[in-house]
């Protein structure tokens, strides 16, 4: 992280006519005549820079980012674990990067084999019968899962209208259900932080509920202990069960969602299987499905050659398929990274990853419970939710705490989510942090809790945070008011 007091320019401001940084081969053939019609009138206004100028510009920008490589990044439900560099190395092999998606399968056997094997590995880890790797990201996995549920019910001659979603769910759940044309019915959370079984019971009696979208472990970091009862009830009433797999990290080698009667669940490869977060994507969001949903898988699927030959084929003749939802097969180069990671960990590593994630989250819970209100004071899974309830009494809010943490070289937790816990801070340390790093984080949190008790705490410790970073608090209201969205607007 940079704290250089330097102005960061836009690339166009650095631009000088005639500078260039491209290197293209000489054309060995006659140049074609210019387009007779529809020619571009005005050359786009792009910067003109030398390669070194471009390198300095982007290197400068990179130093303004906090990242996992800079320090602990305990964003809850985001699983900011270390992104192994060997993944980047394998994903850059020419055989993977330069293979066109429409290459005849006999010349792309390595890609098909990798996808086939990855599907098997994910099925074993999650307990699902099959996995589609097509979704581009978790949200598209949700959409695909609900679309398949809809197709399944349609095949049964049913046209149910509603999907149940807990209030604590990620916002994408409702948005994905709405994209499939469903009405969202919110579910309350019990005093224990769980889905209210009785409410599910009541709501499903009418027979118009297509299913439930449940997050397990929940965004409160708790395992839904009634999961078996809930899946059975939903199935008995003719619905299906979707699970948001954002928190799969807590289940690695410990329990399998497929065994709990869940019909489908998306994976977030960038969370659980260490593909890079990249500042917000690209993701990779495979979808595990139960036997019930196999006929509705999107096309194409990767299969062993039915002729018995020792190779792989693409199957796009699946009569009940929901069709394609994404170009080609999904984010293949992200699959290479996830596959690399899973092959490196093996079964023991996978279990240790899951267990250590839970151990470290509970460590944070125990260390902080005397200083912050813990939303649910009982063993948590891979993340723990605390709040600013005690600090509020002295006028210190979660946002103040978050901006204060930044000055200690640690990224703040997820804040104000889940929505049902006022002033929530959702902390997920992940298993790749050392105990020492997690303890350092706890000490910072405890110190901040102490500061928040002092008289004039806000002025003394919280006003104007962050104070030691290249940027102080950013004015988000101004951005929304002026809506300057490109350099044309300057």
């Amino acid at each position, binding site marked *: 992280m940079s704290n250089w007091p330097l102005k960061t320019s836009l690339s166009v401001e650095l631009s000088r006519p005639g500078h*260039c940084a491209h290197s293209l081969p000489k054309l060995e053939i006659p140049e074609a005549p210019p387009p007779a019609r529809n020619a571009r009138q005005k050359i786009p206004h792009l910067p003109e820079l030398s390669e070194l100028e471009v390198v300095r510009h982007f290197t400068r920008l990179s130093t303004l980012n906090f990242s996992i490589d800079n320090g602990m990044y305990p964003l809850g439900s985001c699983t900011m674990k270390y992104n192994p560099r060997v993944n*980047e190395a394998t994903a*850059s092999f020419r*055989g993977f990067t330069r293979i066109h998606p429409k290459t005849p399968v006999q010349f792309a056997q*390595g890609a098909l084999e990798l996808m086939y094997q990855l599907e098997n590995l994910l099925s074993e880890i999650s307990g699902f019968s099959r996995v589609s790797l097509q979704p581009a990201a978790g*949200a598209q996995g949700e959409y695909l899962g609900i679309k398949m549920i809809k197709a399944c019910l349609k095949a049964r001659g049913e046209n149910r209208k509603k999907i149940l979603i807990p209030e604590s769910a990620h916002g994408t759940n409702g948005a994905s259900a709405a994209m499939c044309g469903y009405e969202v019915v919110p579910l309350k959370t019990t005093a224990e932080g769980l889905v209210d079984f009785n409410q599910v019971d009541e709501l499903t009696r009418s027979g118009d509920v297509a299913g439930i979208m449940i997050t397990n472990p929940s965004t409160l970091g708790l395992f839904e202990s009634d999961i078996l009862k809930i899946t059975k009830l939903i199935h008995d009433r003719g619905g299906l069960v979707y699970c948001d797999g954002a928190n799969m990290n807590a289940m690695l080698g410990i329990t399998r969602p497929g065994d709990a009667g869940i019909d489908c669940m998306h994976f977030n490869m960038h969370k659980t299987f260490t593909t890079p977060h990249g500042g917000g994507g690209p993701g990779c969001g495979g979808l595990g499905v139960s036997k019930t949903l196999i006929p509705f898988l999107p096309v194409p699927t990767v299969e062993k050659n039915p002729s018995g030959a020792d190779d792989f084929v693409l199957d796009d003749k699946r009569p009940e398929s929901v069709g394609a939802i994404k170009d080609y097969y999904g984010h293949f180069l992200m699959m290479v990274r996830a596959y690399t990671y899973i092959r490196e960990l093996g079964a023991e590593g996978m279990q240790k990853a899951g267990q250590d994630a839970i151990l470290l989250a509970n460590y944070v819970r125990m260390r902080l419970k005397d200083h912050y209100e813990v939303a649910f004071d009982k063993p948590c899974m891979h993340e723990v939710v605390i709040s600013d309830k005690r600090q509020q009494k002295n006028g210190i809010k979660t946002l103040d705490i978050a901006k204060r943490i930044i000055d200690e070289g640690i990224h703040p937790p997820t804040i104000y989510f889940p929505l049902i816990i006022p002033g929530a801070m959702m902390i997920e340390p992940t298993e790749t942090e050392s105990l020492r790093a997690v303890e350092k984080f706890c000490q910072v949190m405890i110190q901040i809790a102490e500061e928040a008790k002092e008289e004039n705490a806000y002025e003394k410790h919280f006003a104007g945070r962050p104070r030691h970073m290249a940027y102080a608090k950013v004015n988000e209201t*101004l951005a929304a008011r002026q809506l300057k969205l490109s350099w044309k607007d300057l």
Partner: protein
Amino acid sequence: MRYLPLSAEERKEILDLCGVDDFQGLIQAIPDELRLKGLLDLPPALSEPELMEHLESLANKNTGAWMQSHLGQGVYDHTWPSVIDQITNRGEFLTAYTPYQPEVSQGTLHAIFEFQSVISEILGMEIANASLYDGATSVLEAVLMAARTRPQNNPIVYVAEGIYANTRKILESCLADQGIEVRTWKADPQTLTCTQASFQDSAEERPVAFVLQSPNRWGLIEDWNEVTALSEKHNARSIAYVGHALSMGLFQSPGNAGIDIAVSEGQSLGIPVGFGGPHLGLFACKRADIRQMPGRLVGLTEDARGQRAFCVTLSTREQHIRREKATSNICSNQNLMALRALMYLTLMGPEGLTRIARDCRSLAYYVRSALQKKFVESKRELQVLDGEVFNEITILAGQKESLWVDEKIAQAQELGILVGLEVEIPKQSGFVRGLNIAFTERHRKIHLDKLIELLGA
């Protein structure tokens, strides 16, 4: 294990702190019958040297990656300056998350702002977002956005016949969920482009949008003015799908023709073909429609010290705030890919963009002219489609030559060439078979001449 630093002693220390005897004590919430009693059945763990060897052997089985390739249809094996790989692999870009805390995410936010700027420049549009999954998703989201601005009971969208077959399938599959019917805007069978005249439906029910793709799936350049005029006539929204982003170096931008929503596949801007992903969806529109726009937007602002700064803005459209009422369920952008595209356009500059567009078109022209001559001489029922092209040409094989496409694909494979992709071509008499061939700056004259010899024989 190198990624899992907790030692047995530390694990014990944590269990003691939690007041439980063993790990099982922490997971009492999981019903016993759901707890795995043994290890998962996974293949043995591999060390880094073994991993590299294993993955390399899989990669090497993709022999197509070493062949002379003319496969296109929306995905093109262009080159990029290596500096893009070096810079985007910096941990600060690679391992940051969504810029939720703007004070420590200015690198990502600044880059997105520049990305929005370069994309709105090349598409000639007022505003662009921080990107969507890919071109097909962008078209889908554009239609959904158009439908939000033109609420109808039984919405219909007209999609040009020249749209990629994959994109068409995705539109049909996904728009059905929202009750939007996809109909075809037929192409003129002579020119294989879509015009106002080639639109023959009466369109009594008012369509929500018309979608036109250029270059289209036969590699031909369409006229955006046709879609704006037709949309205006039917009070629908005009959607331009730029089939190849680099074509913007030579051809009219959608914004220049007054298009409402312009989308594109940005893969050709420094992103590997990568067996289909991750690629990059570009999405731009008019400022007046900003509140209906899907995806992330970054805006300019300042920090408490008065420095220029950036942050995510108008997020009230997005799913984490609006939930089921959001403009889209998408919550990521293709950020690393957007960064690659931004770096690509920054490195190329106006001159590089124009030059690569011109060069790729010249390659296509060279092969087309040579083949046209050969086909005339041979008097066979083979014809290279006429019309304005960018980097793809399409050869039409008449009824008598219906096996020609298969023969040439097979012969080329023998020579280590992936010659192109089969496309169907609508003619008055019905569909005929065609071979679509793409060119990039990877192709030297020697490659082109080999291709001409093969196809002209």
